[in-house]
């Protein structure tokens, strides 16, 4: 049998993959199973550009920027390696593609660690006329298929952000004031939280959720966390009848974030004001100001069908399926060897 010897850190072994043959096999099987799953449900596989003229405005995503020299166009143009195929896929949806899925690379600068590589594989899909509940059902079905014959999972748990946050942090994420959050952080041994987060609720929630909630999620159980606070809207719709939350969900296994899903925002004015809000934060932080994606705004003005969509980090998922705890163990060549 053909097996690789696993990772040596010395530079002469750097040409070798950091994963073993079994990880390559699981990846190939996973891609195959995903395609069969969606083909069987009538969801169309698509490809959209990795190299784009616009990028997401999210203040916490740092795109790779490159320069495109187009023949006949003297000055050329800055282009971005996309941080997610979301905008292009929504343009397809607006053009009448119907439900679609894509398996592609995404690129995020300044991200590297045990569970991060600046280049990673996403599975992203959109379902026409699905609400978040139907989308969660489908993610659950897909995981059942993918984990079959791999690691056994416990029955999944669906819980609101608010309930889960209150359970482990001891405060309401939406109504608690900063002093109360600081008190919770101090009680749980993160006294530096106040100086890190100041009066920025989003950073408070990111810090407390990642430090106190995720590590307390039960191993082996899939968590679907929904009804995110309205201050963390990303590209989700506001929830009708409850202004405090948005129709956003995240899925976790072993406390590790695997994906973000939304009942997709379709209102072009609301989309533009979220771009503007992101850009205001970027300006304040002294970050680059990518152009607003006018083609996405035009597509939304034309009309995005009612849909829900989600993006799942496949490298992390494969890592969890294989029962491993470092992404490099399932990547042929992480950035340190690329």
């Amino acid at each position, binding site marked *: 049998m053909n097996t690789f010897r696993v990772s040596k850190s010395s530079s002469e072994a750097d040409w070798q993959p950091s994963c073993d043959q079994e990880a390559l096999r699981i990846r190939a099987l996973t891609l195959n199973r995903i395609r069969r799953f969606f083909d069987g449900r009538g969801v169309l596989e698509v490809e959209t550009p990795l190299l784009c003229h616009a990028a997401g405005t*999210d203040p916490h995503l740092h795109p790779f920027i490159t320069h495109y020299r187009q023949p006949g166009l003297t000055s050329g143009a800055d282009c971005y390696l996309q941080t997610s195929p979301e905008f292009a896929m929504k343009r397809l949806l607006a053009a009448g593609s119907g439900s679609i899925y894509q398996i592609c690379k995404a690129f995020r600068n*300044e991200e590297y660690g*045990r569970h991060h590589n600046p280049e990673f594989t996403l599975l992203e899909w959109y379902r026409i006329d699905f609400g978040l509940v139907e989308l969660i059902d489908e993610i659950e079905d897909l995981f059942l298929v993918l984990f079959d014959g791999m690691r056994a999972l416990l029955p999944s748990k669906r819980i609101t952000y608010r309930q889960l946050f209150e359970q482990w942090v001891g405060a309401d994420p939406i109504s608690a004031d900063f002093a109360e959050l600081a008190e919770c952080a101090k009680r749980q041994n993160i006294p530096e939280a106040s100086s*890190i987060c100041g009066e920025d609720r989003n950073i408070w929630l990111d810090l407390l*959720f990642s430090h106190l909630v995720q590590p307390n999620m039960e191993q082996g159980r899939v968590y679907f966390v929904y009804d995110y606070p309205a201050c963390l809207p990303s590209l989700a719709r506001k929830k009708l009848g409850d202004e405090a939350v948005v129709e956003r969900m995240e899925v976790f296994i072993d406390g590790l974030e695997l994906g973000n899903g939304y009942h997709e925002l379709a209102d072009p004015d609301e989309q533009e004001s979220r771009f503007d809000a992101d850009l205001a934060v970027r300006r304040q932080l002294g970050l680059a100001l990518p152009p607003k994606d006018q083609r996405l705004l035009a597509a939304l003005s034309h009309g995005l069908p009612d849909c829900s969509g989600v993006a799942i980090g496949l490298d992390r998922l494969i890592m969890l399926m294989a029962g491993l705890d470092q992404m490099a163990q399932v990547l042929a060549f992480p950035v340190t060897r690329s």
Partner: protein
Amino acid sequence: MAVFSTSDFKNGLKVMLDKDPAVMIENEFVKPGKGQAFNRVKLRNLKTGRVIERTFKQNETLESADVADVEMQYLYSDGTDWHFMQPESFEQYTAKEDAVGDAKKWMKEQDVCIVTLYNGAPLSVTPPNSVVLKIVETDPGVRGDTSGGGGKPATMETGAVVRVPLFVQTGELIKVDTRTGEYISRVKE
């Protein structure tokens, strides 16, 4: 003084934390997909040895600590100070009792130790991983017992007390692991 940003963080980095020098022993990049990036870091305070867990927001900084590990020969102690010499430069350094700490019960004159300097002054002393010491006192063992089971306390020439097999006698040389304080073997003179 150099300054390290979170993107420079790695194991072994020597930094100032709460006005004390510390070494980074763990660094985990934590980032919600759409959220703020953090580094969860474990640091060992080089004065107290205590391990501290601390979170930093991306692009926060720490000042570097002027800390260096230097091989030095232990010369002698006058009871209050311990004197060391850097073999190449013959430069001498004086360490106080709190810097020498537990190392003093393993060090013999002429031994080469690692002296950790902070702002040019000894902060801590690490003895060699194993040392050879003479037993100055131990109960006479039972003749014929070579099993090593049981054992008995023995006092070394440096004052350290080590558990040794019953067959080892006063006046003998033994090799000791300074990290665990355990007997390794007898040594012939």
